[in-house]
């Protein structure tokens, strides 16, 4: 009798309803486990309670709490809302923002168990990952991202007042089309968004101070472009070619853009860059958050802080999250990053604690080291999806998942199974799966290679084609039109085989269809 009373006293909550006191108390209990026992190192958190409508709002603007205005966010909102209202999709349980403090949204409709799960998942799992992963450290500035977004929002709306909403919309449309090609893939310098805003102010001040209408009356030096640099190498050197960051190139070199248009390109580019690490670490990030919430919830249950019922409810939600349908299941839609990430981490834990001979052969460094948590933390800090899979996907996991690889050559009549989960296939499978998460392979490699400054100022781009995979034509033409509009002159794109430099396909002289000004 006294025992059950004692254990009841340890319960954080009973029943499904939540209130602030319970949320706070539970957060503290999670924190004791996450930081005290597991030694995680997340950002400080801010838990925000929102309604489902607000979740829809947040969804529609790339999950950001504040953002500049654009019709495409409205479009996404309109569609999400429709799907949600008709019951065709549910909403995510959580959204978490990579910022310091880390913003973690919880929905009012959730039960207390779901709130617990979400806080463990987002405020500790994701947040630890954001704070410690190398890519995020190198590329994102969690301290000032919210300030920067606020600046971006205000800047865009000021531009709308000054230059008209339509003019701004045109620039944003074009910039969005190039957004996935607006990132530097290799770090140049650590991004500091505060400096970024300062620099914008500085640039504008300089421009306003140094503006003199007199300069307009000077005769132009027409010959300047061609004669000085007849030589391709010198020109390429001056323009920093080849350049894979198309937005960056346009921002720096597009001849006809006004200052504010360049600044908008810059904003879109900074945002794209901010999201770039997230796109490269989907499996790891979700894997980390899922493994963390699983460990924390299990621990809460073990220590009698949540009821059996709550734990069952959690397991139900958790199983849905890490469910991986097989390829012939109608629900199959590719590999579920939550399932893959969580699976690898759980398997890694087994390798550390209870290795087989096979594991010792495959993972000599870590097999049986007895420090699963430490191994996880190193992985979370140092890897991204591609290298993570290449390093840690074990034969046992491949067998459990019954993974196989299918070669799809568009020139062949049939598909070929080229590797399965057997001795001869493990390395092949692992390489292939890792390659699927290599953005550099996944996304077309498009670069600015030359500009015909002497002639018609045509911009020359090259798509270096891997494995014969050409661009989708209709979309490509539309993007090139946007590119030409920003550049102000025609644009040409050649698709070139990356190995033998044969030209496979060309988009010739796509003209701008309107002058951006």
């Amino acid at each position, binding site marked *: 009798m006294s025992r059950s009373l004692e254990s009841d006293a340890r319960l954080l909550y009973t029943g499904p309803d939540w209130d602030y006191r319970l949320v706070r108390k539970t957060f503290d209990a999670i924190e004791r486990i996450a930081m005290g026992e597991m030694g995680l190192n997340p950002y400080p958190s801010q838990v925000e309670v929102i309604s489902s409508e607000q979740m829809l709002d947040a969804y529609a603007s790339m999950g950001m709490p504040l953002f500049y205005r654009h019709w495409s966010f409205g479009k996404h909102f309109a569609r999400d809302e429709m799907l949600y209202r008709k019951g065709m999709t549910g909403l995510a349980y959580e959204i978490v923002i990579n910022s310091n403090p880390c913003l973690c949204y919880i929905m009012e409709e959730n039960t207390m168990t779901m709130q617990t799960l979400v806080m463990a998942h987002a405020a500790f799992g994701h947040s630890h990952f954001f704070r410690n992963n190398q890519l995020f450290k190198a590329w994102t500035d969690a301290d000032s991202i919210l300030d920067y977004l606020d600046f971006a929002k205000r800047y865009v709306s000021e531009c709308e007042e000054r230059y008209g909403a339509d003019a701004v919309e045109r620039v944003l449309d074009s910039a969005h089309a190039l957004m996935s090609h607006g990132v530097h893939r290799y770090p140049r310098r650590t991004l500091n968004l505060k400096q970024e805003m300062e620099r914008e102010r500085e640039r504008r001040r300089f421009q306003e101070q140094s503006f003199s209408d007199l300069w307009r009356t000077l005769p132009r030096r027409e010959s300047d472009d061609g004669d000085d640099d007849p030589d391709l190498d010198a020109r390429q050197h001056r323009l920093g070619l080849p350049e894979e960051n198309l937005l960056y190139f346009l921002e720096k070199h597009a001849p006809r853009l006004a200052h504010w248009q360049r600044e908008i390109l810059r904003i879109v580019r900074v945002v794209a860059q901010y999201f770039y690490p997230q796109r490269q670490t989907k499996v790891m990030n979700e894997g980390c958050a899922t493994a963390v919430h699983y460990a924390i919830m299990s621990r809460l249950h073990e220590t009698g802080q949540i009821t059996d019922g709550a734990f069952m409810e959690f397991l139900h939600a958790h199983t849905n999250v890490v469910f991986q349908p097989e390829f012939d299941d109608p629900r199959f*839609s590719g590999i579920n990053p939550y399932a893959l990430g969580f699976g690898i981490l759980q398997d890694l834990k087994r390798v550390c604690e209870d290795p087989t001979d096979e594991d010792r052969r495959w993972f000599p460094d870590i097999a049986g080291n007895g420090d699963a948590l430490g191994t996880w933390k190193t992985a979370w800090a140092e890897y991204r999806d591609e290298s993570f899979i290449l390093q840690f996907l074990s034969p046992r996991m491949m067998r459990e998942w019954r993974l196989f690889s299918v070669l799809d050559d568009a020139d062949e009549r049939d598909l070929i199974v080229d590797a399965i989960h057997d001795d001869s296939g493990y390395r092949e499978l692992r390489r292939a799966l890792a390659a699927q998460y290599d953005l550099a392979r996944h996304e077309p490699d498009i670069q600015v290679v030359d500009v015909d400054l002497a002639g018609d100022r045509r911009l020359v781009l090259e798509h270096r084609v891997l494995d014969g995979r*050409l661009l989708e034509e209709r979309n490509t033409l539309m993007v090139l039109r946007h590119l030409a509009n920003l550049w102000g002159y025609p644009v040409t794109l050649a698709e070139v085989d990356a190995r033998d430099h044969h030209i496979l396909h060309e988009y010739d002289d796509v003209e701008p269809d309107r002058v951006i000004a």
Partner: protein
Amino acid sequence: MVNIVDRRLNPKDKSLANRQRFIRRAKRQILDAVRDVSAKRKVTEVGQGEEAIRIPSDGLQEPSFRKASGTGVRRHLMPGNKEYRAGDTIPRPEGGGGRGAGGSPDGEGEDEFQFTVSRDEFLDLFFENLELPALARTQLSKIEQQGLQRAGYSVSGSPATLNLTRTMRNSLSRRLALHRPKRDEILDLDREIDRLERSGKEPERLRELIREREALTRRSRLIPYIDPIDLRYNRFVPTPRPISQAVMFCLMDVSGSMTEDMKDLAKRFFMLLYLFLERRYRHVDIVFIRHTHIAQEVDEETFFYSRETGGTLVSPALDEMKRVVRERYPPGEWNIYAAQASDGDNTPSDNPIAFRTMEEIILPLCRYFAYIEVGEERGWEAKTTLWEVYERLVAAGHPIAMRKVKQRADIFPVFRDLFTPAELRA
């Protein structure tokens, strides 16, 4: 210490501005879709509630550089192998690609886009730039008076608005619920005490009665007869009281010469006009008058769906309209509009009468009179008798407009044409 913030009270429609941008962007597509929807509705049902709109996605696509699906060499990693061995071949599934339903979240390859527009968004787009003619002549449109309207009860208010019935009802139920001693109980007790005191007998019982009386008195002091929580006041809210109201007369020729197709054209025109007036006025009435050689006010159902045959006379319809106006719609308070649809046939002897009725009675009543002549594509044009009559009215500068409509596609352009203000005409 974690910071927990309640954001639920933050403004909800953070996406509203983006949504408006999107709607503006998709205007043309939405207009087409809206027109399709409205073609299938009853006159008085159109524009009620929200419309689920399915629009093609041209112009709403967000392109990006993507690799085409049907080229080159790809590998697909999949879980759940059952019988395949390395080297097996699999016939290519229909529709290319070895994957299942791998729809990208970005909606790659989406052809159509479905969403819901609210009624207001719908009507705003529909009637953008359209205006009622002859508004300058009246100062009535959109002017509103504030009036007060009863709206239930409130717990606070001025003494003048105290609602006695409610207050007393609350007071009574509270007293019953809390067992406030009744006045009669205390009086009975008093009488008993009085009797005992005088008689001097049963001192024990007397003390008990006095204690009981004290308890009851205390109780009735604690539970007052009327408590502030009983009070109820009549609540009034200011409501715009429209003084701008409009009535539309739909005059339709249903004589034998009008085919179902012609009636359908007429119906769609009336529908637009009705929607439009409803948008511009707080209160719109609609009167259906059909006529052959006799005319009669009918309900919508009869107006559109009953079959009637007979000869054609226009003037009885005008007389009927005059009657309805006289009985129900004093022109000083109502903006009167009329739309007449006919195939243009009229008995020749009626033409002079119709002309006179129009000029002397109907047109002076009306803000605007729209005549549409429905007909079939014949390849040759001859002016109908009614057309000639009305042309003379137009020439005389009366507020009447006339157009011909031959197929459904003509209706919206004609409608826009009739109601686009002169300064916006291209």
